[in-house]
């Protein structure tokens, strides 16, 4: 019973982090049909920037979190305008290679500035320790991550399903050519969606740093993980990405607890099974 609860708590909070980091990737893939492998780089930039702000400016965790997320969103705008935009509509391979080139540069840059070892991000005191729920205690940090994930999924759902901005996003995902002819400024939409996705990745990178530690190879190390979440969920869907992140997070965590030596195999087998049975992903529309 205790182990089951541990698997549940760790798996769900891990899934939430995966979701926050990957959702921007899913949206940009659904919207621009562009494979941005460097998306994890935004999470990494966020984490390192927050650590740097806290160390050099001596601000609190919350301020660094907000500042770093906004900064990453701003950095992402010229990256989209100058680089990623060049490969819209090109072969998936060109997009992948351009963004892999970007990853290499980000990794080399992070190594130059922060070194090859893990950079720790100090979480505030009130998030350490345990909280009692009924007869069980669970780590406050895991609870915080889970609540943050739920808030973000709720906000995204409202933004996409209930606002006029969301209507335009959904129209562009369905058919960008027709969306353009009815007067939707898709170019502006792309830039906003890209920047919001980057900011969310930074947010996920920062609050998830206790689970996925900040190191200079971060963007490469978790690349396959993020792509797996997006393809398993079906690109462009918030619910799909959410379900896939929880599924893969739980599968991986359960394997770590039950058969530690097979943990990474379990992850890939789960992905393999879903994708061979449903190539378009759990919630994706047929390709």
């Amino acid at each position, binding site marked *: 019973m205790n182990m089951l609860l541990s698997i549940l708590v760790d798996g769900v909070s891990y899934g939430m982090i995966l979701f926050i980091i990957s959702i921007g990737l899913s949206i940009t*893939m659904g919207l621009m049909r562009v*494979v941005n492998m460097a998306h994890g780089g935004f999470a990494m930039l966020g984490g390192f920037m927050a650590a740097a702000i806290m160390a050099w400016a001596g601000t609190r965790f919350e301020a660094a979190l907000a500042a770093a997320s906004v900064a990453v969103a701003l950095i992402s705008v010229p990256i989209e305008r100058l*680089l990623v935009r*060049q*490969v819209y509509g*090109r*072969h*998936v*391979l*060109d997009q*992948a*290679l*351009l963004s*892999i*080139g*970007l*990853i*290499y*540069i980000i*990794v*080399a*840059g992070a*190594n*130059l500035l922060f070194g*090859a070892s893990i950079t720790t991000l100090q979480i505030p005191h009130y998030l350490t320790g345990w909280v009692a729920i009924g007869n069980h205690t669970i780590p406050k940090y895991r609870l915080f991550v889970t609540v943050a994930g739920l808030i973000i999924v709720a906000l995204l759902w409202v933004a996409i399903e209930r606002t006029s901005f969301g209507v335009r996003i959904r129209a562009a995902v369905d058919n960008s050519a027709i969306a353009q002819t009815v007067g939707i400024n898709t170019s502006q939409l792309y830039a906003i969606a890209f920047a919001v996705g980057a900011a969310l990745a930074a947010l996920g990178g920062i609050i998830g740093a206790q689970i996925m530690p900040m190191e*200079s190879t971060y963007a490469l190390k978790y690349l*396959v993980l993020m*792509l*797996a979440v*997006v*393809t398993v969920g079906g*690109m462009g869907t918030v619910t799909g990405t959410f379900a896939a992140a929880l599924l893969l997070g739980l599968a991986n965590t359960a394997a770590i607890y039950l058969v530690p*030596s*097979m943990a*990474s*195999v379990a992850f*890939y*087998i789960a*992905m*393999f099974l879903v*994708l*061979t049975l449903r*190539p*378009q*992903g759990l919630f994706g529309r047929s*390709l």
Partner: protein
Amino acid sequence: MAAVGLENATAAARPQRPAIPFLPEVMLAALGIGAFFAFPNDLAFLARILITGLFVLSLSLVLGQAGIPTLGHSASMGTGAYAAGLFAIHVSQDPLAGLLAGGLAGGVIAVVTGALLLRTAHLTFVMLTIAVAQILYEIANQAAWLTGGDNGLSGISVDPILGVFGFDLYSRTSYLYALAVLMVSYFILRTIVDSPFGLTSRGIHSDPERMRALGCNTYRHLLIVFTIGGLFAGLAGALSAQVAQVVGLASLSFGTSGDALVMLIVGGSARLPGALVGTVVFMIVEHVAATVNPYHWLFIIGGLLIVTVLVLPGGLISVVDWVSARMPWRTFGRGARHG
């Protein structure tokens, strides 16, 4: 990329036989033997370049010609390497039989996984190829009783080639052996690429819908290409197992597939020689840069990738083509357009 494919297709429709038969292979041999005498102290490294070159060539067939976007090509190479290593330890130490075993193993892995994976497309296919390679990697890691796990499969020793040429400390035999295998493989791959079969592959790459409308069974065709590619990747793996006398887990890793892809794209994927140009440039620059600082090397390779995709989609080989087309003796190399 589509434009390049089309240009190739029209060129192949009017076959231009080389003025000299085996011209590309002869040039390869001349360069290879030249390097043999020019750098007698670096033969082990040069042999590694040749083996990687064969691996990237096999990827060029699969990805450059047929447009199959695999990021798990190391699955075939690693399987071939382990198969050849185990073959030498448990069955026979004959090097050529070992090569055959490795090639077959690589081909079998490709045909089995390809049959399932090629029913999907786009990013799903890419992710599934990564998953296959990672699952094989973990199997090799866990089955330490068979593969040596983390420590690698060691204790591989092979007999002299054809019973005459023994392997020596200075890698002279290994180098010439790798060169010979590369030349024969190049000839076979070039023949495939120049044939109607190769033309069909480029057709599927340019426009799969239209090829289906023309009555082509694209699934079966791609599966055959994928299998041939796996076979040659397995051959490269077997070669590396025999030459290095050890097989590490790295031969199955994601990094091996990724590096090969980078070499292919930087060199140029539309034509076979691009694979070799890319391999040579990548490995020499890496060799030099990595001794300075392995992370700074990533700046170079990242920049190289971005520049290639944005400015030079045809890769380095397109520069060679551009220059040679403006040379007075340009008719000389013409017949070798695909090869």
